[in-house]
């Protein structure tokens, strides 16, 4: 067993940390979730969410949308008063050969200091090359050089934040000829070498298993159990290209049946892990989104002891 396995702690009640009195933004006593299911909170749902305070374990937002002030911050402050928070970044470009942008890290850290998220994450992908920021989660060859690059940037990020982060497996649409390891081997190695946790996106595994023709269940069976600090679920779009079934990770619809099946398999292996429903385009009503979160929660309730595992960020 890895010495990092003690990174996983079981948490069945809020931590209730003492917080400095102050500017009113620090009254966030709900540091950790009790229920496993969370939702990605989007601007269109702010008002509904704060007015109705639905029964969901926690919320997740993209920090890049909160680097300024104004209404987004206002609503996040309101939501954070009642819900634990996960900050899920899309802009660190952990897979770039250049180091992580210190200005981006600084803005991100300001949010971490204010909102005290229980999880902080980004992706095993890249978007920056020289001056170009390609605002997409671009694929990496799974080689020793890529592993070293990711580890260097994860170390830099964790040192800057003074805490561990989670790294998410991406959806990819192309595979590299020089791959020297599988993606799950890469993800496990990141955990072993840097202490980062894995944010396991179940939909991304499924999407890739179709696009690159591998066994999604085998992938899950080979992920280090203690490394998984969060899971993601989302909808994808199915296409037919030259008679081949091809999937795109669009986050614009309900989670598909096959992905729910794979999630159940993951829950049996990893236990009760915070799980976020991501929906970014063609947004449904908050009620429908909550329905997806309830569905994920019921799978956890059925197959686990419901003691929620929270990755130790220290």
């Amino acid at each position, binding site marked *: 067993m890895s010495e990092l396995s003690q990174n996983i702690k079981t948490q069945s009640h809020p931590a209730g940390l003492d917080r400095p009195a102050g500017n009113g933004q620090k009254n966030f006593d709900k540091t950790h979730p009790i229920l496993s299911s969370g939702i990605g909170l989007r601007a269109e749902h702010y008002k509904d969410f704060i007015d109705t305070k639905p029964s969901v374990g926690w919320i997740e937002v993209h920090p890049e949308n909160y680097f300024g002030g104004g209404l987004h911050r206002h609503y996040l402050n309101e939501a954070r008063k009642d819900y634990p928070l996960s900050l899920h970044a899309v802009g660190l470009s952990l897979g770039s050969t250049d180091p992580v942008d210190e200005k981006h890290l600084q803005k991100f850290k300001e949010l971490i200091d204010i909102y005290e998220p229980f999880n902080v994450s980004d992706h095993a992908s890249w978007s920056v090359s020289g001056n170009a920021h390609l605002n997409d989660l671009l694929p990496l060859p799974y080689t020793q050089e890529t592993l070293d690059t990711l580890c260097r940037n994860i170390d830099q990020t964790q040192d800057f934040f003074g805490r561990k982060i989670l790294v998410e497996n991406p959806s990819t649409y*192309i595979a590299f000829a020089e791959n020297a390891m599988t993606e799950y081997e890469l993800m496990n190695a990141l955990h072993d070498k840097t202490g980062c946790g894995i944010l396991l996106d179940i939909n991304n595994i499924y999407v890739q298993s179709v696009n*690159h023709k591998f066994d999604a269940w085998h992938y899950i069976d080979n992920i280090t159990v203690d490394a998984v600090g969060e899971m993601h679920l989302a909808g994808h779009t199915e296409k037919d290209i030259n008679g081949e079934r091809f999937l795109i990770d669009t986050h614009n619809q309900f989670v598909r049946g096959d992905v729910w099946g794979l999630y159940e398999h993951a829950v049996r292996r990893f236990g009760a892990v915070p799980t976020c429903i991501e929906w970014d385009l063609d947004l449904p009503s908050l009620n429908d989104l909550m329905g997806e979160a309830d569905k994920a929660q019921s799978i956890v309730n059925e197959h686990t002891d419901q003691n929620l595992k929270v990755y130790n960020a220290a």
Partner: protein
Amino acid sequence: MRLKDLQNRFSDYIADLKLQNSGDDEFNGQFVNDAIPIETRLNIYQDGVYSTCVSVLMNNHPLLKDLVGDDFLRYMAIEFAKNNLPTSGYLNEYGLNFPDFIYKFKPAAGLPYLYDIARIDRGWNHAYHADDVPHLDPQSLHDVSPADYAFLKMTMHPSVTFVKSDYPIWQIYQYILKNRGGDDTQLRSEITPNAAKDPDALPEKAEEQDNTSDIPPPDMNTGGENVVILRDNLMVKVYPLDEDNFQFLVNLRDKKTIGEASGKVMAKFPAFNLAKTFRGELKRNIFSGFQLSK
């Protein structure tokens, strides 16, 4: 291929829409080749990158969208993105130079005020996302001796943008709002790389404040108008400014003292009412601070 070279080549491929088939054997050899062509797979990424850019521009320019329609705005956005991919991971800042692009964009030459309306959209977006800096409390000026007012240098709130135009942009702005009707939200949607594979599937976005009624169509012969955009607490607001007030505030922004700024304006506009303008702008929450300069 070293990772750095691979990322450079990948990046170049995505950036260059015109050379979609430019992958040479060395580049194509980096990928697994199967029933789905490498080019088709790479183009999924290219489409993702460009559609995010287009989504951001369309999201950030609701006034332009109302003026020229979805199709023409998307056309301008795509033409802009071809030579202006993002240079930062902070997508709210993408397209700062989109108004300048529109200024020179020949198919839009018949609508010369688009440049200024695009700048109002940009100013609105800037105000919306500006840092949460407290507004200047007028009470804090009570400690300043009236004899020293002329030596005050004012700090503009970080949300403020001034737009000066040769066209009646305030009338055009009000006319757009009137035709929208019934808008009641200030919320802007978020655009993230996760959410932008399909530019046709954009959520409805951004509305302006102000309920307007009985606004006549703009009279294009009435000369230029100026506006200021700022965020007053949580609300983004757009105001018209007469030329004298506009020049006074721009001088204050450029770190002139109140005495210097009002002197310059009064030389051109003898009727300029300093006390009324200053009180009005204080109330509007345009300032965030001051310093005494003598």
